[in-house]
């Protein structure tokens, strides 16, 4: 019986073939990263829980392998409070003392930068202190978000404890994306189909010719949102596109990985990409999706049959737009957004914020004239960080705000006021909407 990639990766680390459902008491991990939200408390807890043990052993309080641990300030930077600033300083000093790489404010978002810098390679087991760590599964890794405590333990010993080997669900993608339809639309469609808990406890494996037709940027968007259907993570196989991406970039040895043809899955779904439309998620959850052609029906339904997480929406007008986040602010996302924006202006009633996902993306976008397109159109272009995605800074929403965003969550209160309405969509849809002041089908901009 063949194995899925997940089974193979765990088996490889444990040194023997494992079974689905088996509990691995001590699972070695290979990459670990912290952001500015969890890094500081994790460091404090690491010293409090283990300081004494290092002292007794006569060893310095060092992490399991300083080359495999990273600190990235991305959520609340440029630091907007004294407490946050102290936290970033703690991450910096802790890293410096130990030979650990601590990125700078503005270097970019954790789930973008490490991939860009070739630190994530197939067969890795990647832990990050953020649920969108699943993004890294696009590189053929077992990558998932953990809380402060699991991360702190991993920092000390390089292991994750009591890990139960999960099943996988296969999403076989066929066909080709029509013009104006992007990988964000694919994953929103899938989440809408599966529901908020649809992949619970399972890994979402995306496969098929449809995946192979996508670039690495496009693939990361899909794995990024696997958590929004409660998947443990997302994962994709190694292929020529990945090989090409990692060539001259990878900082670690690269080995191919794929699931065996006779591997066993909890369920299999086939998605025909050529049948997809631009897709929009309505407030208040990513699973409230509609194809854009049915937008008016969805608006009417929200008024007729609202529920606590499907709130009434008045009409299709918007007041705010955001092109950014770990989901959709990579180079190609800016290319797609600029292609729509070029020759147009931001609508007078809309506030558009554009945040490239990393310094490298920012610089490339600048060199190629993409930033200029947004700036001249009247967008607010910012240095690289998570931005308004999680409602703390860089554009917090009022009770009257109607925001269309390339990010990954639209829960009640996610981006500020609990009364704000947040729609999720692709960069092309977001920019088309920012131009017209209403949720807009971007396909006309690609004719």
């Amino acid at each position, binding site marked *: 019986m063949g194995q899925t990639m997940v089974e193979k990766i765990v088996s490889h680390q444990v040194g023997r073939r494992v079974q689905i459902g088996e*509990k691995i008491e*001590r699972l070695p991990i290979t990459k670990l990263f912290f952001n*500015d*939200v*969890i890094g*500081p*408390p994790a460091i*404090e807890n690491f010293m409090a*829980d*283990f300081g004494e*043990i*290092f002292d007794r*052993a006569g*060893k310095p309080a060092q992490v*399991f392998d300083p080359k495999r641990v990273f600190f990235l300030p991305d*959520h*609340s930077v440029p630091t907007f*409070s004294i*407490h*946050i600033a102290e*936290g970033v300083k703690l991450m910096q000093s802790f890293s410096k003392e130990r030979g650990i790489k601590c990125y700078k404010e503005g270097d970019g978002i954790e789930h973008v930068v490490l991939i860009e810098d070739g630190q994530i390679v197939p067969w890795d087991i990647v832990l990050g*202190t*953020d*649920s969108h*760590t699943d993004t890294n599964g696009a590189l053929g890794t077992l990558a*998932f*978000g*953990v*809380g*402060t*405590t*699991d991360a702190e*333990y991993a920092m*000390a*010993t390089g*292991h994750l*404890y*009591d890990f139960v080997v*999960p099943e996988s669900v296969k999403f076989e993608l066929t066909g080709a994306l029509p013009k104006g339809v992007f990988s964000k639309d694919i994953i929103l469609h899938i989440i809408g189909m599966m529901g*908020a*808990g649809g992949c*619970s*406890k399972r890994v979402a494996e995306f496969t098929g010719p449809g995946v192979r037709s996508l670039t690495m940027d496009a693939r990361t968007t899909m794995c990024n949102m696997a*958590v*929004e259907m*409660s998947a*443990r993570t997302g994962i994709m196989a190694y292929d020529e596109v990945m090989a090409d991406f990692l060539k001259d970039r990878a900082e670690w040895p690269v080995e191919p990985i794929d699931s065996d043809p006779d591997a066993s899955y909890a369920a299999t779904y086939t998605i025909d990409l050529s049948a997809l439309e631009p897709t929009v998620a309505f407030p208040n*959850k990513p699973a409230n999706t509609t194809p854009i052609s049915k937008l008016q029906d969805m608006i009417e339904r929200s008024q007729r049959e609202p529920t*606590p*997480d499907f709130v009434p929406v008045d009409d299709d007008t918007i007041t705010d737009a955001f092109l950014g986040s770990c989901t959709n602010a990579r180079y190609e996302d800016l290319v797609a957004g600029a292609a729509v924006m070029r020759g147009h202006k931001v609508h007078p009633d809309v506030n558009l914020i554009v945040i490239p996902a990393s310094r490298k993306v920012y610089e490339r976008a600048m060199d190629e004239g993409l930033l200029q397109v947004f700036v001249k159109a009247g967008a607010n272009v910012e240095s690289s960080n998570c931005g308004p995605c*999680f*409602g*703390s800074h860089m554009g917090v929403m009022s009770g009257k705000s109607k925001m269309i965003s390339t990010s990954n*969550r639209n*829960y*009640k*209160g*996610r981006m500020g006021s*609990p009364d704000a309405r947040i729609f999720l969509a692709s960069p092309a849809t977001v920019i088309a909407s920012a131009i017209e002041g209403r949720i807009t089908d971007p396909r006309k901009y690609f004719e």
Partner: protein
Amino acid sequence: MMTGKITSVYGNDINTDDIIPASFLQQSTDRKFFAEYAFDRHDPAFRDRCKETDTNIVIGGENFACGSSREQAVYALKENGVVCVIAQSYPDIFYRNSLSNGLVLIAVPDTSAFHMGDELNVDLDNFTIENKTQGTTIRFEMNPDDQNTFQQGGMVGRVRRHLEELLAK
């Protein structure tokens, strides 16, 4: 044996932004801090209801505490005196975070028998929940390792021992 009172009943897909909005996460590293802002946007009355007793029980539906991996969601519940959550299912991240902190999570297929105000005896040794108010008792399933970890309030002891082994090499 845990004795508690149901002071909150929620539906499906409660997420960790509901439990503790992101804007509070970096205001403190003290776990008690998060008690004050639990359910701040979704259900601010949660905190007042928790004051009724030291042993609150929360009822949830499917997929309780989905979304962000923020462990502060567990602190927000525990520091409000929530001793136990009974729901139909939990995503893995929240389940692990609760194990790490000794917040007991029980999964049952049907929570319709539990009502606001019910007094419960939760027996972790025998896997039963006695609803004293309704006069009913149900059984639940729990992995014995998890039962042990919940009762110990986490696994820091095991990790310490592992670290000692590694440093001795």
